[in-house]
């Protein structure tokens, strides 16, 4: 089975790097699965879960909160501002995040910003569903 290189990089450290068979990404325009020899695409990510299929066939799930994926034929790079292995994520954390965003939304009078924060809340709630909490 063909493989490609997958790098998952956070601003403070590299979170994952290695050869993989497939990566499933939560793109803003919809979920997508990347296999080797994918056409070059640059996409933004929403809040969600990245599923990595490693060479051994075993899977690995990483929670990601926004970022970018730079997809090429033989490598994929994901730049994420905030991310954590799925085991470290818990519903309380997400709830707190949602609550905080709602507070921010209510505090602002800027309409565009409001819209943006609203979208973020929807994404967080979706992510919560995906993680089935």
């Amino acid at each position, binding site marked *: 089975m063909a493989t490609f290189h997958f790098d998952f990089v956070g601003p*403070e450290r590299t979170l994952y790097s290695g050869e993989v068979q497939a990566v499933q990404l939560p793109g803003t325009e919809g979920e997508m699965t990347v296999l080797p020899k994918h056409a070059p695409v640059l996409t933004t990510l929403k809040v969600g879960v990245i599923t990595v299929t490693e060479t051994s066939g075993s899977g690995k799930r990483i929670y990601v909160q926004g970022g970018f994926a730079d997809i090429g034929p033989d490598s994929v790079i994901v730049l994420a501002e905030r991310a954590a292995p799925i085991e470290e994520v818990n519903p309380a954390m997400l709830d707190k995040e949602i609550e905080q965003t709602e507070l921010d939304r209510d505090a602002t009078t800027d309409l565009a910003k409001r819209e943006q924060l609203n979208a973020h809340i929807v994404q967080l709630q979706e992510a919560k569903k995906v993680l089935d909490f």
Partner: protein
Amino acid sequence: MPSLKDLRNRITSVKSTQKITKAMQMVAAAKLRRAQNAAEAGRPYADKMAATLGNLAGNLVGGVGAPKLLSGSGADKTHLLVVCTADRGLCGAFNSSIARLAAKHARELQGQGKTVKIFTVGKKGYDLLRRQFRSEIIENIDIRGTRPVDYDFASEIAEKIIARFDAGEFDVATLFYSAFRSVISQIPTAQQLIPAELPSAEGENSATGAASNAAMEFEPSEEAILTTLLPKNLAVQVYKALLENAASEQGARMSAMDSATRNAGEMIKKQTQIYNRTRQAMITKELIEIISGAEAL
């Protein structure tokens, strides 16, 4: 001529100072290692971000639709200087060399008839610049609360800068920090933030590479990606500068404290010699007095 007691006091005081400088040196060495590790860990993100951005922006530069963060506001009148320094002193010329570079730039810009605004990060930079540029400083953030430097802090600063830019408060932003070369060498550096200075679109680190640029697809759209990527890039640049600064600060402190410890050692040696000589002279003097007293009888 100082008395023996004075000399003894002076020696003890220098000795305790030496102990402090030595401890500070060791603490700085440990912190330096941590700061260097953090800088190393943050490098891949910054590199890949720069590669992706360079790749992406290559065909947009100069275009009509290019975001303002990339192309600038079109004017060159008001400059914002973002000066990053440490919160603490006792680290040699670290803070003052950054402040001096920033002040030099500010004077030059003022000489060209441009308006200068200053945004200081770190207490020392503010202290050093506020005497000369009281009215120019528009904001000051201390680092003290957020130690060690993390990405959230950097993106907070970046957001503030962008908010001011969007409000039309300045046209060009320049970041001042100290680049870490080695323990004994830190170079105060000026880096332009807005309009963004981009690496050439070599795209070595980019997955897609420059060659396949034409065939690249974008989701949602090229402009939309660029407008979200640019503020992030700004945060990354600030974060990188803060990390470099943290390493430089500890490096500068380490070498400053090393020489302070050595100077204290030298001083102790000299003072001990004077002390011993004085003591010897007093004994001799007393002996002479006793002997001549006995002879007179």
